[in-house]
């Protein structure tokens, strides 16, 4: 009896494993419009994300497909031109984990959509709201210092750092890297 129940439960788990994430490619226009309505603080640093984003479960920060679309956009729209592979050049670095306008996704979103002083162009009329959110999600994974459950897939081209779906980035201190000689 118990074995039968065990087998049944196990096979249910196996069947459940066949389920795939159902992807919704078509973002309904009203949802897209509401995702654009971020509420920034008066200094445009930080702010409140749209309620729609929270209700949907922050799909642009937690879904691997969206992160990967963001990664493609990063190349297609030449973000490398100023930010390199995250190391920074003309523009600030992302890998440093230091965000000029704060680490919040809303700040990054506003930076991309409206631009920032000292050279960051506005992409509001170059990209759709969905694409800006995808890019936001990806940019935040570059500077993330803690493990994420979702990551974009690997690059075909050479990359100057380990790809995002490998081991999480951690702050390496000299004592971590160079173990001291055991004391006698």
């Amino acid at each position, binding site marked *: 009896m118990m074995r039968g129940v065990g087998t049944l439960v196990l096979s249910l788990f196996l069947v459940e494993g066949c389920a795939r994430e159902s*992807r919704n490619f*078509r*973002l309904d*226009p009203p949802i*897209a419009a509401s995702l654009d309505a971020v509420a920034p603080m008066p200094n445009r640093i930080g702010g409140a994300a749209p309620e729609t984003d929270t209700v949907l479960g922050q799909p642009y920060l937690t879904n691997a497909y969206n992160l990967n679309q963001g990664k493609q956009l990063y190349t297609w729209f030449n973000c490398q031109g100023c930010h390199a592979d995250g190391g920074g050049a003309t523009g600030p670095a992302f890998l440093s984990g230091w965000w000029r306008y704060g680490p919040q996704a809303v700040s990054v979103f506003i930076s991309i959509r409206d631009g920032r002083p000292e050279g960051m162009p506005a992409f509001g*009329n170059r990209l*759709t709201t969905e694409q800006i959110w995808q890019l936001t999600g990806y940019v935040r994974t570059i500077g993330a210092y803690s493990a994420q459950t979702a990551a974009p897939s690997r690059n*075909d081209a050479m990359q100057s750092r380990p790809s995002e779906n490998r081991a999480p980035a951690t702050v390496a201190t000299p004592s971590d890297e160079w173990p001291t000689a055991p004391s006698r």
Partner: protein
Amino acid sequence: MANRTLPLTLPIALLCSGCTGWQSVLDPHAIQASRLEQLIWLFVAVCGVVWVTVTVVLVMALLRRKTPYSHTDTRMTRIVRAAVIATVVIITGLAIVSFYATRGLSSSDATALEIRVRGYQWWWEVTYLDARADQVFITANEIHVPVGRTVSLQLAAADVIHSFWVPNLTGKQDLIPGRDNTLSFTPREIGVYRGQCAEFCGLQHAHMALLVVVESAGAFEHWRQGQLAPAATPRGGEQETGKHLFESKACASCHNIQGGTASGTVGPDLTHVASRRYIASGLLETNRGSIAAWVADPQTLKPGNNMPRVALDASELNALSAYLAALQ
């Protein structure tokens, strides 16, 4: 009577209907495709003879009266030896014939028309190469070639592995990221042939078709000159508005239209989009209505493709489709 023959004739008729048409290996219209067709029939004939022989021997063996084993011992050894030798000879022969037929698929001569084909999810970028930079042009999803001249294709991929296959003209060759493959064909007859991505490349793999238009040398040159020219200037206020919208909205950041400020390279070049028979890689026939439908909601027509829905109101969509449909 009719009822009895129908189950037999219907499958045969269905099988035969696959032998001709604009996307069939058994209807070759280029030298390389003819060689491949001969190869197919040779394989079918040889394998057919082998299969019939094996079946006959098997049936004979089953029907044969039992005789003491020792009488046939030496004879059996001889038969097995002959069968092994025949197998080796046949397989070696087929391997050599196959090698020569497929080797001809990537040979090229100095006068060949050089075209670079790059596979994207899910469309084809086609670049006509030339030593002179002002003779180079880019189009998408439709390749025009003159009849009788060898075409040398350089195959590359932008994202994942795709495969170029126009069965009436030549063999199948993969497009692999980071690697250039070559494939050539010499079309013999004027016509329009359909190709299809032949390596599963994602959700819309089935909607990744292309056309090869084989035309006379004169018609090809006329088409080439047309493609080299910048886009048609918009006529009338509606088309003017359409152009302005295209260049001020997100469209221009992915698409290129020669002769204006739209210069994106992520999506297909739209300089002469209305001159192509289909849009969205064989999905819809080109006309103003299908262009409007595509722009209005690309994710419903081809879910997962990289064209986002750009918010437009009805009059904007009208103007934009008028402008695009006039880009002959």
